[in-house]
């Protein structure tokens, strides 16, 4: 009897001491967010990692921002003008902008930040080729003096995805682009707490009480940035099951990218809801190596595109029909330059036709060395589908398994596949990175100086140069369609389907903004 009483008392004591854990997360002024990856690098110019870009949006501000409709709107900029000869752009900053260290944001800071960004970013690099010089007539005004008119000035300054032209103090922006910055001071809505940062575990941000938000309502990345939390914590949890458990238990408020396997369960879980803040989503692609047999032959690349289709990739990797969609365009459907006029490429696998095309192209059974990253769960299944689809059309495929770090090292090798090179790999891009021909890596067709796969196609480069000079959106759309036509004809890469990756939040979270894949913490609140 005594033993039972003792056990019961111990149990009750234990329960009272431990208490319900969910209470911890009920503080409406603290928001706990689980990012899709470990935040290791804090410099958004040094790396293109999305998690670093998202961190940077917390603490830095941008000159322009993209609204939910894809229009570029002023953000830090108050007004801007372009001279009649379209060669002098004058920008005036909003009054009262201030960095987290209390110093005002000046035109000198802007110019230093833009120079560093342009040294790393592809689109910034293109913009740089147009710029003759920068001028800073006063602390609030800066000018871009161009050598010749360009149509990409605002597009580049309002670029939403990596690398984003974030504005930082000139002394920090003076760090060469190839070196990481040591201080993380911006003028954005949150302040980074460097003293609480534990790489691999926790990043902490507090509200920037002096942030000067725009007065317009939040719209995409543009408009006002009202902050409803005193503190935001990024909690690094890698294991998807632990992410799910932590969300269910109320220890965290939002999981950026729950696994697709949990999608149906999440929808049915009490206290949790699924939200979609990035409707344009991501696109799977397969990149061909244009240097080596068999994909040095455009006809064989075309046959591969016809063989592969899109549906099987979505079914296998995503597994949730409502989250995937077929999109033939190389620019993601739903974005400004999307164009489903893709000729022979229908996005539907047609092994019989591919077999014929392969025969006509004179395929000699050279094996396709296909690289598969086994450790990257988000794309690990799609090479298996590609192998099956290619083999069904008559290709001989040698799929080699490796981790992502080995894959990125190997894809940089120009050697023949038998000597350590490769023929094809698959990856996924967020819509923001591939919605503009100047930013899309696969359209870098400068041969051996270009992107992995090293396509040498002067027509694409010429069209891109015209695109960069085009003045109107209509003109740009027309050029983007022409670029796509050449990309299809030469089979730069194969678009393998578009998909959304919804987020999971506690039911009391509201106010999430639709963005090009960037989870922003302003406007969000907990009821």
């Amino acid at each position: 009897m005594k033993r039972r009483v003792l056990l019961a008392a111990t149990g009750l004591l234990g329960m009272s001491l431990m208490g319900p854990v969910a209470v911890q997360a009920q503080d409406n002024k603290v928001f706990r967010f689980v990012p899709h990856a470990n935040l290791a690098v804090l410099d958004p110019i040094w790396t293109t990692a999305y998690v670093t870009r998202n961190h940077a949006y917390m603490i830095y501000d941008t000159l322009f921002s993209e609204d939910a409709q894809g229009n570029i709107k002023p953000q830090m900029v108050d007004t801007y003008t372009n001279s009649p000869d379209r060669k002098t752009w004058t920008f005036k900053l909003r009054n009262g902008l201030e960095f987290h260290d209390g110093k005002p944001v000046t035109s000198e800071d802007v110019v230093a930040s833009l120079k560093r960004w342009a040294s790393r970013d592809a689109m910034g690099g293109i913009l740089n080729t147009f710029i003759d010089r920068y001028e800073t007539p006063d602390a609030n005004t800066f000018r871009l003096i161009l050598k010749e008119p360009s149509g990409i000035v605002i597009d580049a300054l309002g670029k939403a995805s990596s690398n984003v032209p974030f504005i930082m103090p000139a002394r920090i922006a003076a760090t060469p682009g190839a070196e990481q910055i040591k201080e993380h001071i911006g003028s954005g809505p949150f302040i980074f707490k460097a003293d609480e940062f534990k790489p691999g575990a926790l990043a902490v941000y507090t509200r920037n009480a002096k942030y000067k938000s725009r007065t317009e309502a939040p719209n995409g990345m543009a408009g006002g940035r009202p902050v409803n939390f005193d503190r935001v914590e990024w909690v690094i949890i890698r294991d998807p099951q632990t992410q799910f458990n932590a969300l269910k238990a109320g220890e965290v408020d939002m999981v950026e990218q729950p696994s697709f396997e949990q999608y149906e369960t999440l929808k049915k879980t009490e206290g949790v809801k699924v939200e979609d803040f990035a409707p344009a989503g991501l696109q799977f692609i397969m990149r061909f190596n244009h240097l080596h047999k068999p994909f040095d032959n455009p006809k064989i690349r075309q046959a591969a595109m016809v063989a592969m289709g899109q549906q099987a990739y979505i079914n296998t990797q995503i597994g949730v029909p409502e989250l995937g969609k077929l999109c033939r365009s190389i620019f993601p459907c739903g974005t400004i330059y999307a164009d489903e006029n893709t000729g022979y490429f229908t996005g539907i696998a047609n092994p019989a036709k591919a077999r014929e095309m392969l025969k006509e192209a004179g395929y000699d059974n050279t094996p396709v060395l296909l690289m598969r990253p086994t450790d990257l769960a988000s794309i690990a299944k799609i090479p298996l589908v590609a192998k099956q689809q290619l083999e069904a059309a008559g290709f001989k495929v040698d799929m080699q398994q490796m981790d992502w770090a080995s894959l990125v090292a190997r894809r940089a090798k120009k050697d023949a596949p038998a000597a350590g090179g490769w023929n094809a790999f698959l990856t996924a891009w967020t819509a923001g990175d591939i919605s503009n021909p100047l930013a899309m890596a696969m359209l870098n067709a400068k041969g051996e100086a270009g992107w992995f796969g090293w396509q040498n196609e002067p027509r694409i480069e010429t069209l891109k140069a015209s695109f960069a000079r085009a003045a109107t959106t209509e003109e740009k759309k027309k050029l983007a369609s022409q670029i796509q036509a050449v990309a299809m004809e030469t089979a730069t890469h194969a678009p393998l389907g578009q998909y959304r990756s919804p987020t999971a939040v506690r039911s009391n979270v509201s106010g999430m903004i639709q963005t090009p894949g960037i989870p922003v913490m302003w406007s969000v609140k907990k009821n």
Partner: protein
Amino acid sequence: MFQFVLRRLLAVLPVLLVVSLVVFLILRLAPGDPAAVIAGNSATNDEINRIREQLGLDRSILSQYLIWIGRVFQGDLGYSYYLSKPVTELIGQRIEPTLALAVGTLLLAMAVAIPLGTIAAWRMGGWLDKILSGFSVAGFSVPVFVIGYLLIYLFAIRLEWLPVQGYKALMGPKAASLWDWMRQLILPWMTLAMIYVALIARVTRASVSEALTEDYIRTARAKGLTERVVLLRHALSNAAVPIVTVIGIGVALLIGGVVVTETVYAIPGLGMLTVDAVLNRDFPVIQGLVLLFSCAYVFINLLVDLSYLFLDPRIRY
């Protein structure tokens, strides 16, 4: 004994040198290039080459090794390619959670396993012995992450007694209270201890049961000593050497076990640091960690060897 310790400590140096060289070579010769990982998805070959140059990876392997080992002798393990922090600082940040997890697990495992194994040996063939045998099989067979998820489901999700994940440091400027610190670790300790309870209990049972058949036990019983004294003072103390040996091996195995446990419970320890470093080919961090783990192995082995002196007076060094 002093000479033995000195000899063993001096022998560590060549061991560490060989380990450092082997690890250095394996990393350089294995597939994967930190520069390519750092450069990101949109990079070109020129950008990768520039980063390789900055990291010094364009130099010969021998020259890279000499530079690194020279710094190691000055106490500098290098700089993480990714985190832009000294490796020693990173290890310093991560060592507390791993030590807390490992030491707590071992203490818990010993506290449970040694009495269980001793009683099972004393009542061999009885119900406790059978339960222990079943538990040992389960403890060895069920993967750590399965145990972890089951415990989380029961204690964190259903009963809401303990947190699902995380770690609050016991030291440092924002130190948690002892109780808050323990609450975060109870489930990880239980998860990881399971396999060690099975291991240590089995060895204790076997060792004690063998000791119980010895003549000195019969003599002790004939002298009229109580079973408690016979078990603890005569059987268990004579069975201690293999138990301590297996605990020493267990510590070595713990390094692998903490990786999974740290992942399931989102504990930012050395295990997670190792996994990240390997996936990103963060060479200086991997090299630093391997050196640290090697030192830990050597030190633990030395402690185990020294403990024999106290446990078995017949042993002399």
